[in-house]
């Protein structure tokens, strides 16, 4: 009933195409994050789901029901705005009661529902506070409560944590996730912060330039990026990608990285499809999976960032730069040469021409 299906969705603003065809199925009760850099079309997608904008073409279905022409107040959608859009001239109680009041619910009914939602969100002691001087986590709860009181089947959240300082974000993330467990609604969460998407979402839809790049669970997206964009965008820092050509060696298929030498042999399952690609490929591996080794890529250390728990070592320069993340301070300093090797199982290969991942056959 509250599943969302987006079919061939397109949105153009004059000459500008914000969304170039999007197909996405969001299951009932799923927490789906729309993740991407600004201008990727994620907010446009959400606004169309909410009915604030009409799609240029394509369909939006809630369950079986086509939403075309259904105005935004009648879609049964809860929406939490980036800055919460709390009615600042009202009390917390008046904010919570707004929806039922506008629908003409009886006084006793409104009181009962406001009481129940306030209890659930721990807002009961704050009900008669003016809402212009509330802390941001309470604003978030009021915003969620104000929508939740309408019992929407679908909840849309538009970057609700982007105005919150970093330290507080962790608290808010936990709180949001708990709220979603309580309400059990389908949630669509727009963010440009991969940490939020990774920690909260059941699945992530990564978007760029109005195109859906990949849909998958956080670990799928992290471990098996579908293309170069996702590989670079997910992870902090993103995946290392080195340009090279497949080459045969006596130990199996390797990638010739030019001045950096050749890589260790590729694992057997991806060797055949890599062999089949013609032209250049990108040899990818996660900075976190790099280990110091006796044999591997020998590169000069150009910079070392020590951030307490982890050390990020920058190796090489320009196109051939590699970043390696170590759990401990590995004692490397600028100018030294490090020999690093990614474990064979963590290597991903992308077709340089198409940008797509070469999948194990």
């Amino acid at each position, binding site marked *: 009933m509250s599943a969302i299906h987006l079919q061939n969705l397109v949105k153009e603003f004059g000459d500008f195409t914000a969304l170039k065809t999007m197909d996405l199925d969001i299951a009932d009760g799923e927490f789906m994050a729309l993740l991407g850099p600004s201008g990727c079309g994620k907010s446009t997608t959400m606004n169309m789901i909410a009915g604030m904008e009409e799609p240029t073409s394509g369909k939006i279905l809630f369950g079986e029901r086509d939403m075309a022409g259904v105005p935004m107040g009648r879609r049964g959608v809860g929406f939490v705005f980036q800055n919460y*859009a709390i009615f600042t001239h009202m009390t917390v109680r008046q904010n919570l009661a707004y929806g039922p009041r*506008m629908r003409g619910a009886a006084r006793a009914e409104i009181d009962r529902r406001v009481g129940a939602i306030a209890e659930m969100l721990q807002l009961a002691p704050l009900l008669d506070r003016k809402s212009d001087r509330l802390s941001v986590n309470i604003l978030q709860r009021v915003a969620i409560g104000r929508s939740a009181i309408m019992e929407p089947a679908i909840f849309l959240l538009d970057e609700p944590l982007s105005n919150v300082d970093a330290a507080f974000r962790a608290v808010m993330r936990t709180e949001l996730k708990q709220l979603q467990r309580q309400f059990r609604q389908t949630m669509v969460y727009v963010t440009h912060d991969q940490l939020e998407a990774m920690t909260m979402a059941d699945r992530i839809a990564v978007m760029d330039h109005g195109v859906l790049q990949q849909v998958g669970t956080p670990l799928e997206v992290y471990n098996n990026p579908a293309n170069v964009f996702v590989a670079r965008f997910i992870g902090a820092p993103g995946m290392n990608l080195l340009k090279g050509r497949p080459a045969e060696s006596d130990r199996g298929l390797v990638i010739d990285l030019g001045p950096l030498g050749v890589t260790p042999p590729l694992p057997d399952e991806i060797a055949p499809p890599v062999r089949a690609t013609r032209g250049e490929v990108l040899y990818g591996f996660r900075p976190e999976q790099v280990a110091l080794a006796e044999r591997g890529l020998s590169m000069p250390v150009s910079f070392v960032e020590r951030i307490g728990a982890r050390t990020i070592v920058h190796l090489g320069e320009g196109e051939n730069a590699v970043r390696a993340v170590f759990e401990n301070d590995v004692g490397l300093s600028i100018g030294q040469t490090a020999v690093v090797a990614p474990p064979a199982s963590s290597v991903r290969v992308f077709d340089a021409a198409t940008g797509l991942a070469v999948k194990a056959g």
Partner: protein
Amino acid sequence: MSAVTATILENEMGARTKPATPDEGSRLGFRLTLPAQILVLFISAFPLLMQLYISVTDWSPLSGAGWWNAWEMWNSFANYTDLAADTRFWSALQRTAIVMLVCVPAEFLLGLALATLFADEFPGKRIFYSILLMPMMVVPAVAGYMFFMLFQSGGPVNDILSRIVGTPVTIAWLSDPNLALIAVMIADIWQWTPLMFLILLAGLVGVPEDQMKAATLLGANAWQRFTTIVLPKMKTIIIIALAIRVIENFKIFDTLYIMTGGGPGVATETISVYIYKVTTQDLIWGYVAAIALAILIVLSIVAVYAMKRMAKAREVPA
């Protein structure tokens, strides 16, 4: 250690400015603000005191003595007791109140309707916007002549009415005691609705758009959004707009005086017109000072009340 630091700091500061005691500081401040204070004294306090002084005398410019010698004609509070019994004054006050009670709400409602219209985009908005603001730019005296000519019995208003009705209409707008007041009010509404519109539009575009969207998503229709979000957010600005127009309208004079001269008879004689007549025709300036002072007090009460309401409204920031 701290004593040493203090000494060093003192020396450093002493090198730049002379150590100033609080007393010296305030004396310097007084001297610096003195020119402005004298100016304020002359433009507000002096005329007020002079007015108060004259209002308790029978002084008139024809009495031969300078105004400073008005005490020779001291009549204590006779002017004020006369005022209380002056039926012409009270009916002028009543007329002013009628004009205000019709014009200000009409200007407010028209201004609000127009502002709501102009908050959205529509083709030709900029041109209409300029046209709409034009009446406000017209010199009131000129507006007076315009409406004086429009409302002549052979004038354009009657002409248009004749064409609509089909038979010749010869309404004597400005010489009928009842219609004259209506004509005057129409002119005032024409001229001052734009100001109301301008102020209210500024308030309207300041209503946060996301809160409007949130209200829509929660199921509020256009009227509900207007009453529950727009009006409460505009409370302060509405009070300001109404206060400006109430005070200005109370002083209605130029347009009206040119259109009717307060007539026919005293049919459109408002407070300002009455004061003007007493000043220029009867020349009893002691009495005029008393009337003006009484009105000043009434207007001040209105202003203070409005400001109090405003301060109260501001406790709930928009």
